[in-house]
């Protein structure tokens, strides 16, 4: 199967007061039709920058794409004009953001905002667009959608607003949905509703999803394949079962062991959690060699000298670690 999206060697810099930071360093991945690709990693590792760069929503300056290609069915998005790109955003690729309040307009009703998407991308009449927006609200399980269409965003709860965002993002049946921490600001019981909804709509519409989160539990139940990022790089990439059953990179292993599980305590009463020692290095002051070096219990001489490449280690699986270098 051909990938619907190919990201190749994407690098992004930001000019900051303290100096230049490289937020993405040669990030490459493919997205296949109908699949969910999860991106996990800690705060600041480059998840949102990856998403925003695909849609070309990075503020430039301070941001700058220094190299790479983003191919949508073979067409390089980085070479498109501003107006061509606008016709792709919200139409073929759309995005849900972490904080719905910042991406919804406070001065229009939610019905008007969804209708606008229909009119812009599908040239619908006002009437068609209005009934389309009510239908979308119903599809994301908003009770009494006819009335809800008349609400302004501030009249809705966080969970309702996030569902409106999903309705807007899916209005034009995009090929690709990018969901950047869509449930992080929500309560757990609401999170379960939203994730369930995204999955069902994905099944109905057959779109591909890039699902970004820092929550390994959520990734385990939403993604088919997973990318693990650390300081602007991909450290490991695998099918979800492989990643959780046999994490390879010492960082991925550390992450898996350090999260508390509900009910796990019973087995080994009051055990300590495993820790990853130290902290994430600053992008302004990255170590030589492997970027995980200072926190790694398996560090070798070569790790200090040279940063490993992202190497194929098994079918459909890559890992950036000297431990898995085949002679």
């Amino acid at each position, binding site marked *: 199967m051909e990938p619907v999206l190919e990201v190749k060697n994407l690098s992004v810099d930001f000019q900051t007061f303290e100096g230049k930071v490289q937020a993405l360093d040669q990030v490459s991945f493919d997205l296949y039709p109908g699949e969910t690709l999860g991106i996990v990693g*800690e*705060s600041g590792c480059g998840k949102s920058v990856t998403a925003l760069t695909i849609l070309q929503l990075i503020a430039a300056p301070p941001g700058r794409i220094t190299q790479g290609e983003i191919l949508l069915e073979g067409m390089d998005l980085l070479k498109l004009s501003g107006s061509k790109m606008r016709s792709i955003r919200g139409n073929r690729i759309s995005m849900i953001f972490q904080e719905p309040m910042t991406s919804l307009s406070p001065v229009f009703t939610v019905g008007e905002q969804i209708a606008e998407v229909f009119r812009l991308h599908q040239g619908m009449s006002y009437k068609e667009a209005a009934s389309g927006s009510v239908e979308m609200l119903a599809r994301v399980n908003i*009770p009494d959608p006819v009335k809800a269409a008349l609400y302004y965003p501030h009249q809705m*709860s966080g*969970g*309702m607003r996030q569902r409106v965002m999903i309705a807007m993002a899916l209005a034009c049946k995009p090929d690709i949905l990018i969901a950047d921490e869509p449930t992080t600001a929500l*309560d*757990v*019981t*609401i*999170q*379960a*509703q939203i994730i*369930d909804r995204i999955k069902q709509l994905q099944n109905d519409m057959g779109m591909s999803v890039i699902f970004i989160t*820092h*929550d*390994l*539990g*959520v*990734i*385990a*139940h939403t993604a088919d394949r997973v990318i693990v990022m650390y300081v602007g790089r991909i450290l490991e990439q695998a099918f*979800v*079962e492989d990643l*959780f*059953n046999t994490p390879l990179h010492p*960082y991925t292993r*550390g*992450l*898996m062991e*350090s*999260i*508390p*599980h*509900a*009910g*796990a*305590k*019973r087995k080994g009463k*009051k055990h*300590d*959690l*495993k*820790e*990853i*020692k130290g*902290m*994430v290095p600053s992008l302004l002051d990255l170590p030589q060699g492997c970027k995980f070096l200072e*926190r790694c219990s398996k560090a070798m001489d070569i790790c200090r000298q040279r940063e490993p490449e992202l190497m194929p280690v098994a079918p459909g699986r890559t890992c950036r670690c000297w431990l898995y270098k085949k002679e």
Partner: protein
Amino acid sequence: MNDPILKVDALEKRFPIKKGILRKTVGYVHAVDGISFELKPGESLGLVGESGCGKSTAVKSLLRLIEPTGGNIFFEGENVTHSPLSRLRKLRQDLQIIFQDPYSSLNPRLKVSQSIGEPMDIFKTPVSRQARKDRIAELLERVGLRPEFADRYPHEFSGGQRQRICIARALALNPKVIIGDEPVSALDVSIQAQVINLMKHLQEEFNLSYLIISHDLAVIEHMCDRICVMYLGRFVEIADDNEMIDNPLHPYTRALLSAVYEPNPGQKQNRTLLAGDVPSPINPPPGCHFHTRCGHVKEICRQLSPPLTESGQDHFVACHLYNS
């Protein structure tokens, strides 16, 4: 020895809602609606519930950082609900709080040594400058930081390090109880475990009692011996940690547990998805607060609020399903 160190009885906090130029009170936010619990010495009690259910308000009112509008608070047997400020100051040496956000809870203009030393200065504990300095160095070491960090400013530290500084500050006066309001929620996954382990070790070392608040059930279950589940200002269930996980009774607790995403892709989870949103605490529904989202609702649930009753050993639930 088994007398509770802290006891809260029917604690209530209502915030008035004022409108118009006359600032007339037009209603109340029922943030905390009559909760009761006991904290035993050396115990860790967890308080879990979703955003806005009143967790922070509950601990702020029991510390009397805001004044409760009803109920009683006992510390080591003494009723401190109406104690004067002079008594409260002494009390706050014994009861320390750590907040969620390690970024805003440290004054950016104070050096670490000043932040940690502040409670000692207020309560005039160690007298000599050298004793103060030694104590700060000792506290920094206890929370896994280097003593020379004392002369640095908060912005020079990462989130996890700042939370350690807050913990050192909380320990400065040898408290008996530490209250953590989402102490690890703002931290990165790889740093959370460090802080959770540190807090557990300190608890053993100093025989501290913990009251830990979190919206993350896995964190609560890991850190606590006993768990209270809160919904819209009230406790719906209290039980020991394992009992709560193995045998949840209240439909809300069950939904909360089934909404946890286990980091295990093979495991098919049967989720009980709750319909709808949490109602507003301004006009909470009559009867059981949960009845608007409950799959087992009966007529009585709409009218009568179920009391918290013992339904197994040390297992309390507030639900009409178990009241026969």
